[in-house]
């Protein structure tokens, strides 16, 4: 049976859209950090580690929290069978740039481990996994633009081969104050229902229009 999207979340243009409906809107044109914090508060997330995260991790983490907040069935799956597979465009250039500033001036040289650790894009996947103890398939793919064709094929194969029972997947990006998250909770289809949304590229392209 086809794998299905059981929830999806888009964070862009100062809005949080869940399953096609705008659920949160920032009317104050907040800058990125404040915007993310207000989303964090709006969804009543309580996770102090959030405040240590870099800009890319923040949006990926919030997207994943929103996706699975009310999904108790995911918490009951063997954590080794929950995967996190994301695409991203600008890697950690934002944090890389901040880190470079700490080593540029040799008279004021202070490389920071707290910054350096966020100079790998898959750390956002690690943050999501740590939060929920997910230990399944993991990969961070870099693409010029979100590529639903590749990610659906990859994720569907891992689900079809029983390597995962569920997956948090999609696209997250942050650079120079610009941000986007398009995240999907994908599960194996257990019953045929009319309102099931198949995890297929043409459907995703429609959902994110």
């Amino acid at each position, binding site marked *: 049976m086809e794998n299905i999207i059981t929830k999806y979340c888009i964070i862009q243009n100062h809005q949080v859209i869940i399953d096609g409906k705008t659920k949160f809107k920032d009317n104050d044109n907040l800058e990125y950090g404040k915007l993310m914090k207000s989303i964090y508060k709006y969804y009543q997330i309580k996770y102090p580690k959030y405040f240590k995260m870099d800009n890319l991790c923040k949006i990926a983490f919030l997207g994943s929290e929103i996706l699975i907040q009310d999904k108790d069935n995911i918490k009951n799956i063997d*954590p*080794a069978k929950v995967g*996190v597979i994301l695409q991203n*465009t*600008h*890697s950690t*250039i934002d944090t*890389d*740039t901040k*880190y*470079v500033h700490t*080593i*540029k001036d*040799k008279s004021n*040289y202070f*490389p*920071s*481990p707290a910054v*350096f*650790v966020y*100079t*790998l*894009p*898959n*750390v*956002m*996947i*690690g*943050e999501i*996994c*740590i939060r*929920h*103890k*997910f*230990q*399944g*398939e*993991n*990969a*961070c*793919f*870099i*693409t*010029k633009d979100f*590529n639903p064709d*590749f990610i659906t*094929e*990859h994720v569907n*194969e891992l689900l079809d*081969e029983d*390597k995962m029972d569920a997956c948090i997947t999609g696209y997250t990006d942050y650079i120079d104050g610009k941000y986007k998250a398009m995240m999907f909770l994908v599960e194996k289809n257990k019953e045929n229902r009319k309102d099931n949304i198949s995890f297929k590229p043409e459907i995703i392209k429609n959902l994110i229009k």
Partner: protein
Amino acid sequence: MNTIYTLSDNIITSLGFSSKENFDALKKGVSGIKETSDPKITQIPLNVSRVDSDRLNNEFCQIGNSADYTRLEQLMILSIHDALKQTDIDASSDETIFILSSTKGNVDLLEKNNLSFGKDRIHLWKLGEIVRIFFKSPITPVIISNACVSGLTAITTGAQLLRKGKYKNAIVCGGDIISEFTPSGFQSFKAISPQPCKPFDANRDGITLGEGAGTIILSNEEKHVKEKNPIIFRGGANTNDANHISGPSRTGDGLYYAIRNALADANKTDKNIDYISGHGTATPYNDEMESKAIAWAELEHVPVNSLKAYWGHTLGAAGIIESIAGIYSIKQNCLIKTLGYSEHGVSIPLNIISEYKETKIKNFLKTASGFGGSNAAAYFSEVNID
């Protein structure tokens, strides 16, 4: 499902510009790690494994204009070019896909604020474009940035694309360079050893970084295979230990799951593994965690080594070049000693390879672990066994 053949390969590190040159050095126990005080990469004396820049320039000039390519691009293109020379697959076909892995790509451009290559050149997707255009591939490459397991993730992803027949060939190349960025970061973590690293040893005190590139060409078409008993990719897996973004799990559970899942993917149910090519970074935590994962998988009897004291931790290249070394261990029926290891230093009595040994090798398991909690494993063997 299709059989995934390994067709050809290349390794470029401090130890040479071909797999053969590199493996010959490993067999002799030669290390490419040297101390440097080059101010372009370090503020304090640093042990590091670097590729010979003059030779890189000379070799690259024979296939392209070196002024048009960054150091990392030159390494990766040269590596792919050498691997392609040894096989008859067509890199410009729409049946061949490039899979590239790198942790930091052209990060040296960012440090130097070098815009002479254009502002996009710092991005990993652009690295993919540069490689794709050089080899006239019509297919958008897959780029993986999964910390220190990137190379193994690239191999498993390439194999997955070939198994179902979506593509016929995958050119899997990983690379990373040494600039000031990575050494200073690991130094800030106090994770770099003041001496060449000592994997699994009682006196290990950190990693040694290295740069390089490695390429392995995979195919699901037997017609390209030249050997009688070729080596095939049998299975692989990627997991997360969900412990800490910069520290491995104390129990080794994530790496154990990767090993378990890779062997399940290979339909391997017995414990008859001839060799484990470990990650063995020589940090106190990593090697201890690895030993626990190997014991958990009931593989502590299997000869295991780490190659990090030969060419350092080459990050995005590591999973690929160390898999290639494993393939040569099968082809030449020998086990490479763990350079830097003298006194056992992990709590599990692993079967660490401490001397070069010639013995029949038919298969091996490659493992890797990295920041972000990532773990990966892959299992290779000759086609005509188990």
